[in-house]
């Protein structure tokens, strides 16, 4: 039940001037330069190579490696943060995961420190260690290579994936993936992407969880039945104990180091802080947390420990305002802390969440440029009983977000328009205006129904939290692997247009020649070709994901992470083996709006109006509309556009774009949900794109919606820029998509050039538009409050906009860190005047991606 006791929910008395510690830490954070850290890679490799063998049981072997690292992890204190623990040995570190993406930087070892785009400093000594000692061990052992070898092993395929042995050959899926322009197999780089639960460790301490695992192990041993299932469970419980013990050792080392530093520290404040940190780490996480500071530090230590085992991508802390509230409440009621203290502690956690970034090769910076690790924090919404859950901490976290304006955590505000107060809604809107872009809004009414439709109980669905960008999870209950597949819908469209080929892949027939579209007698025939190509690509993407999943089961379990979920401890089964209560895999789609608009153009221009033949259309596309400018203008300006037509009540007379958008979301839902993953769960379609819509756009040819070759696609589920001039219609069109067909989440990006925070009318319009959109049925909405002119200025003079934060497509990034294509994409997103609800005209200097060239 909501409990708001703050006199001023805006907490205006608290600023960075009145909290100089946060100002100091924030400045250090924002100015920190990324450095590669090899500590984890070194210890994990050392253990697996020198202290264990390939014949050891994998759960305990991997747990042993993680515990070995944690036990030897350097206890470091870089700054005056109130919390102990660091993700890496660097102030702002990029850890190496050689078993996953780490090998991709091998070519760059000599140049990563000085590359143009987002350099990451690597010492010469560490480069040598990676080159000579670490990477060679993993050459045949990283997850992608392991999976490739298994695909080539007929006995393994027959035993594990018998359904995938067919005429085309199981390696087809891998070859498609390696083209990189059809789909990305997320597991080649990570699973992570989930929301663990910290409640158990806060309430019982790791000691309690270790004792539970020990008891489960003892029971099974006493059982005496020599069955494989028991042996697997025993091994799992042993692995949990080993891994969690490593965390305790790390905490003790931190405690000891802090005490040693306190002894020699001359500054009284620092001495006191070190002493307190030492005391905190002597308690948590081994024992239950007793107060807010211990609880927050416990959560932070667990977060760093999880990254010892799982890559730092979208490992999301969840509903922290709910989880931490009991500790806050007790401390405040007993007079142990003030609101200011709580702000500082939460602020310190926010800054700690920024202490690491992803290690990626330079090209990946082009595709995903500027992203942090996207640990999502979720606030607000309703509780498990369906009642208003907003509390003091919700507003404290909003204020901290407003003051700090850091890239991470990715902040998400749940809003239930029937249960949460308008006061809360409007406060979230204020923070968005003041920060320019955060947090995102999520629709509790629809999201809960979406999750229930996926088989969740109502209580679990109500307790949902956001993963990474926008994906939906029930924290500590669902294992979602939400980035398993990133599928390029435009590639499918092109395969249909060119009968199994794509311009970027030349003459190779990639899939199958299902039919020449020029022979289609009606739009239904073309949609049939499109569907065949779509099913083909999805089948291959699912196949590869399931093979990779099976590979993870064999060599890369997650006993440490499993300890923080309901299910694994009861079942004695690692998350990777389906131990969670709910299992699924996420399949997100890139190029949704461009695909819908292209289908609509084909339907109307080719088949209904018969204005152009298919051959004429293909000729124009191949020429990138050179010599076909009139056709392009017609396709751009006269064809139905997703977002520009609102749904009508009658299903039989829906506007063309509404019909095609509904068709595509429905089709993807049924195809994806018809596939089962390696953990017995379903595939959940989603529409978030990170920066893939820009990267994949570069690789794609001209499209029937009039888009030029090489231009960025629209982001997430957002309509194509310039397509829709009316905000209300846009909100109805996007909100009108059937929410239960989007169980993986969506990213809807909107831009307002200006919102006057002092104008009650503007703020009311802001909040009301969000509410209207949610009532139409939209799942998610996020904003950039910035004008075309300001963004153009930031592009031209980045030195003046070093801290400009923008919402990309589900995550925040510093504008300066984005590649040029992404900057242009954000600049040219349609901006709507909040007062009139009309799209602002583009400045003369802008040519949006899909407007005809002058």
């Amino acid at each position, binding site marked *: 039940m909501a409990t708001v006791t703050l006199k001023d929910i805006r907490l205006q008395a608290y600023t960075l001037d009145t909290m100089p510690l946060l100002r100091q830490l924030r400045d250090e954070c924002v100015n920190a330069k990324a450095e590669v850290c090899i500590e984890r890679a070194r210890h994990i490799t050392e253990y697996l190579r020198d202290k264990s063998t390939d014949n050891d049981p994998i759960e305990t072997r991997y747990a042993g490696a993680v515990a070995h690292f944690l036990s030897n992890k350097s206890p470091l204190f870089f700054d005056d943060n109130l919390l102990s623990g660091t993700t890496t040995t660097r102030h702002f570190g990029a850890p190496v995961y050689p078993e996953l993406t780490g*090998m*991709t930087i*091998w*070519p*760059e*070892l*000599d*140049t990563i420190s000085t*590359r143009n785009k987002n350099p990451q400093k690597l010492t010469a000594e560490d480069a040598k260690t990676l*080159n*000579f000692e670490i*990477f*060679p061990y*993993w*050459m*045949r052992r*990283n997850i*992608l*290579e392991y999976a*490739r070898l298994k695909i080539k092993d007929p006995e393994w395929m027959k035993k594990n994936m018998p359904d995938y042995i067919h005429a085309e050959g199981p390696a087809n899926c891998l*070859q498609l993936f*390696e*083209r*990189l*322009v059809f789909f990305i197999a997320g597991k080649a780089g990570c699973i992570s992407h989930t929301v663990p639960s910290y409640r158990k460790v806060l309430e019982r301490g790791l000691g309690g969880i270790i004792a539970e695992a020990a008891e489960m192990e003892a029971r099974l041993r006493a059982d005496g039945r020599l069955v494989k299932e028991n042996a697997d469970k025993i091994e799992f419980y042993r692995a949990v104990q080993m891994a969690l013990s490593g965390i305790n050792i790390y905490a003790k080392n931190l405690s000891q180091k802090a005490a040693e530093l306190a002894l020699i520290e001359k500054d009284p404040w620092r001495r006191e802080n070190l002493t307190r940190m030492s005391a905190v780490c002597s308690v948590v996480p081994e024992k239950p947390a007793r107060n807010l500071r211990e609880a927050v530090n416990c959560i932070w230590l667990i977060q760093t420990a999880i990254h010892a085992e799982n890559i730092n991508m979208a490992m999301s802390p969840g509903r922290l305002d709910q989880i931490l509230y009991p500790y806050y409440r007790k401390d405040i009621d007993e007079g142990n802390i003030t609101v200011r203290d709580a702000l500082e502690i939460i602020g310190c956690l926010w800054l700690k969440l920024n202490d690491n970034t992803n290690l990626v*090769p*330079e*090209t*990946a910076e*082009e595709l995903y440029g500027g992203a942090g690790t996207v640990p999502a924090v979720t606030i607000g919404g309703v509780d498990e009983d369906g009642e208003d859950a907003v509390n003091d901490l919700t507003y404290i976290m909003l204020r901290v977000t407003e003051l700090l304006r850091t890239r991470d955590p990715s902040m998400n505000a749940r809003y239930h328009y029937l249960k949460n107060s308008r006061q809360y809604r409007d406060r979230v809107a204020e923070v968005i205006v003041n920060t320019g872009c955060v947090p995102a809004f999520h629709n509790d009414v629809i999201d809960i129904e979406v999750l229930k439709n996926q088989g969740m109980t109502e209580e679990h669905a109500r307790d949902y939290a956001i993963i990474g960008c926008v994906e939906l999870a029930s924290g500590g209950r669902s294992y979602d692997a939400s980035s398993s597949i990133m599928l390029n819908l435009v590639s499918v469209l092109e395969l249909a247009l060119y009968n199994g080929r794509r311009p*970027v*892949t*030349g003459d190779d027939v990639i899939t199958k020649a299902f039919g020449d579209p020029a022979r289609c007698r009606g739009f239904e025939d073309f949609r049939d070709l499109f569907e065949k190509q779509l099913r083909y690509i999805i089948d291959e993407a699912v196949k590869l994901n399931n093979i990779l999943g099976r590979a993870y089961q064999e060599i890369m379990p997650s006993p440490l992470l499993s300890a923080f979920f309901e299910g694994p401890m009861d079942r004695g089964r690692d998350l990777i083996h389906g131990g969670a209560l709910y299992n699924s895999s996420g399949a997100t789609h890139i190029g949704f709006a461009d695909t819908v608009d292209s289908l609509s153009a084909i339907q109307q221009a080719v088949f209904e109006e018969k204005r152009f033949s298919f051959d004429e259309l293909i000729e124009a596309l191949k020429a990138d509309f050179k010599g076909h400018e009139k056709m392009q203008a017609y396709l751009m300006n006269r064809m139905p556009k997703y977002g520009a037509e609102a749904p009508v009540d009658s299903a039989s007379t829906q506007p063309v774009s509404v019909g095609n958008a509904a068709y595509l979301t429905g089709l993807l839902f049924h195809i994806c949900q018809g596939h089962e993953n390696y953990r017995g769960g379903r595939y959940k379609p989603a529409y978030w794109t990170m920066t893939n819509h820009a*990267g994949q756009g570069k*690789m794609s040819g001209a499209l029937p919606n009039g888009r030029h070759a090489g231009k960025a696609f629209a982001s997430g589920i957002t309509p194509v820029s310039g397509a829709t001039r009316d905000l209300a219609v846009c909100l109805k069109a996007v909100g009108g998509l059937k929410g239960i067909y989007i169980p993986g989440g969506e990213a809807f990006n909107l831009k307002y050039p200006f919102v006057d925070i002092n104008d009650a009318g503007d703020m009311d319009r802001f909040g009301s538009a969000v509410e209207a959109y949610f009532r139409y049925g939209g799942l998610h909405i996020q904003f950039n409050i910035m004008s075309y002119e300001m963004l153009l200025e930031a592009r031209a003079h980045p030195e003046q906009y070093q801290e400009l934060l923008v919402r990309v497509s589900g995550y925040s990034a510093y504008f300066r860190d984005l590649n040029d294509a992404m900057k242009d994409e954000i600049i040219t997103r349609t901006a709507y005047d909040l007062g009139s609800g009309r799209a602002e005209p583009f400045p003369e200097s802008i040519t949006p991606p899909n407007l005809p060239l002058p």
Partner: protein
Amino acid sequence: MLEKILNFIFLRPFRAGRAMKRFVAHMEGELSDEFLETLLGLMGLVFCLSPEFRRNIEGFSGIYVFRTRDGAVAASAVFSNGRLKKCDKAVAGADIEITFRDGRTLMDFFFAPKPDVLTAMLKQDITLNGNLNYLYKFAYTANHLRLKVRELLG
């Protein structure tokens, strides 16, 4: 000591100097069908002459096949026993086969300021069959060689 004697007998320093000149010409844009042979040849010689560079292939064995789609270029690099042996045809049992769009793409890949595997895959300039990690290692070695040559040339 034996290594030094062999280097002298086989005129490796002299041959490396000539190979380096050809290598530099390719780095500066001169395309010829022999540039891959130049790269592999220079690499092989430098492995013999430089213990520091040779460390990169100590204990390493691997077979690489490089080819262009039109078949104009095909070469293999066989690493074993701390040596690189080059062949002017595809060798069986490759750990990785890398097929380049054409000769120019192949040269641009290896003589670019930094060999970018992922960009080459994205642009469909290369297709792969085999262990991608082998390509990463080779790209590092080629880039390392290129930087060393630039360093030597000042």
